[in-house]
């Protein structure tokens, strides 16, 4: 046991969208590392254990050469203001405070901002805009849900504490016996590590989620279905009828859904069918639905971009005000279509998970990267900042997948600046450059400028 340690209680793990805030961290202050993370799941333990400080790594680089942070901020601001179609992307693994700065910069440079939502639950966001959503915070699921359905996801591996902390086993106000008071249904094309939790396992044919959801909507509304439904979907009519009855007769039902719906053919219509099913069920009982969101603060990114622009992601400012059009202003599209001429990537690694065509374009334009570690994206960046890790080295606000905001409790200090302070620096400099441009264009009058908000 190290000698110089401290304990941080009620710290928050920001690895996944569960944002569990009951961590008890033991920090070795000399070694600057977390040596124990009580209550963390396997992913959380790795998150805390592996975010160590590499003192030798440069805090800032331009074209691979070490520079001061100030020089890098200057170069980033110059690069972004020169561009005609600069894009900002990422943001799901940083604080809301940093996200606010990122939107501010993009607004000032008349750029394009998008978050990892667009390649995660973006389609669910579009579905939400189409049909709305009956939803709840996770505590209501814990307190009330007697029917829990997971659709197209594998939380045992992607959100390991979702079952234990929020939805399946916890004992709540009206579910005093925990799992015994609940029926758990899992719908997935393959058997996964989540399967053992289910009382009922339904395995549709791959790519038939929409048809199954549509069939359930019809049954819930009392409509007849064609007899060949099993042949078409792989799910027998009796199974669908049974599930429909259970859904209508439960006291408080919840449908959680994952990217098995959003990333497959049908995309937003798959999510839309599920949201509509949950809405339909409210004619009979209380029913909610909830996308199981991925990264620690992707929900915060949706919220910040929404309150600042009116739209959750895929927002373009090139005409001096926000416009929203997924498929046009989302990052896979701005890159794959060859539209972006500069990029600022914050806490994300598109170069390792985007479609090949988008990656090729990203590699052809100047890129500013803020990340805690070297990635495929940062290794080729024009300007690269190494930043401290949110929730481990820096405080700030993070939104759990159910839109509940939580304040982070950092464990130890990092020699590297946090995302917010870098972005604040870029914002300030960008503001100066844009104002200079404004005056250079012949604008007159003496104007007082308050500190940028």
């Amino acid at each position, binding site marked *: 046991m190290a000698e110089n340690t401290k304990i941080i209680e009620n710290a928050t793990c920001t690895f996944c969208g569960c944002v569990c805030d009951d961590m008890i961290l033991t920090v070795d202050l000399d070694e600057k590392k977390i040596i124990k993370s009580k209550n963390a799941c*396997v992913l959380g333990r790795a998150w805390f254990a592996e975010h160590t400080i590499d003192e030798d790594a440069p805090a800032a680089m331009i074209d691979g050469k070490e520079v001061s942070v100030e020089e890098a901020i200057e170069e980033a601001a110059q690069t972004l203001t020169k561009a005609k179609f600069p894009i900002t992307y990422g943001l799901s693994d940083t604080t809301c405070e940093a996200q606010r700065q990122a939107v501010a910069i993009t607004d000032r440079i008349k750029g394009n901002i998008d978050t990892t939502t667009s390649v995660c639950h973006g389609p669910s966001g579009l579905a939400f805009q189409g049909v709305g959503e009956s939803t709840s915070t996770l505590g209501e699921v814990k307190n009330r849900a007697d029917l829990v359905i997971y659709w197209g996801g594998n939380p045992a591996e992607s959100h390991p504490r979702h079952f234990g902390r929020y939805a399946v086993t916890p004992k709540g106000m009206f579910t005093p016996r925990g799992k015994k008071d609940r029926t758990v249904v899992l719908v997935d094309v393959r058997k996964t590590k989540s399967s053992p939790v289910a009382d009922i396992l339904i395995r549709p044919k791959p790519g038939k989620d929409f048809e199954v959801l549509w069939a359930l909507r019809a049954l819930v509304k009392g409509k007849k279905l064609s007899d060949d439904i099993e042949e078409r979907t792989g799910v027998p009519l009796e199974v669908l009828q049974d599930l429909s009855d259970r859904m209508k007769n439960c006291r408080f039902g919840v449908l959680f859904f994952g990217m098995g719906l959003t990333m497959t053919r049908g995309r937003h219509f798959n999510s839309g069918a599920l949201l509509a099913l949950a809405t339909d069920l409210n004619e009979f009982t209380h029913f909610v639905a909830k996308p199981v969101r991925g990264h620690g603060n992707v929900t915060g990114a949706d919220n910040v971009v929404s309150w600042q622009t009116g739209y959750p992601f895929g927002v373009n400012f090139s005409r001096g005000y926000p416009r929203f059009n997924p498929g046009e202003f989302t990052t896979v599209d701005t890159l794959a279509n060859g539209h972006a001429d500069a990029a600022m990537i914050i806490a994300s690694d598109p170069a390792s998970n985007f479609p090949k065509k988008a990656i090729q374009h990203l590699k052809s334009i100047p890129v500013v990267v803020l990340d805690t570690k070297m990635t495929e994206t940062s290794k080729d960046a024009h300007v690269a900042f190494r930043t401290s890790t949110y929730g481990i080295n820096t405080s700030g606000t993070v939104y759990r997948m159910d839109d509940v905001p939580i304040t982070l409790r950092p464990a130890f200090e990092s020699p590297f600046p946090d995302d917010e302070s870098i972005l604040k620096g870029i914002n300030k400099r960008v503001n100066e450059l844009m104002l200079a441009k404004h005056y250079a264009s012949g604008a007159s009058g003496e104007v007082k400028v308050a500190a940028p908000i």
Partner: protein
Amino acid sequence: MTEKMILIPGRSAKQGTSLNIGKLKDEYKEVTSTLEMNTDEMAKRGLVDGDKVRLSNDIGETIVSCIGKKPEDLPDGMLFIPYGPPSSELMASDTAGCGMPLSKHMEVEIEKIST
């Protein structure tokens, strides 16, 4: 022999833990280039755990090594791989006016690489 199969990239716990170590580190590279296939399908192709296969479609191709899964867990015709650079090689960029590329259920051809 080549044949069309459905590839489902997704997340796994191991992928999650290894990305914390670093995406440029060997462990992450290994996790994201390991393909799951059911043992019947592997036997049919004369594959054993660790053999290399080439996955390809209209978009591109990638070489990964395979590992067996029980047929009742992963049906015939289906493949699973944790997200990462290899799966990106096969991903189309058309987002159908919604921003999301089709990242799961990609039709791919699979071919054993003779060593």
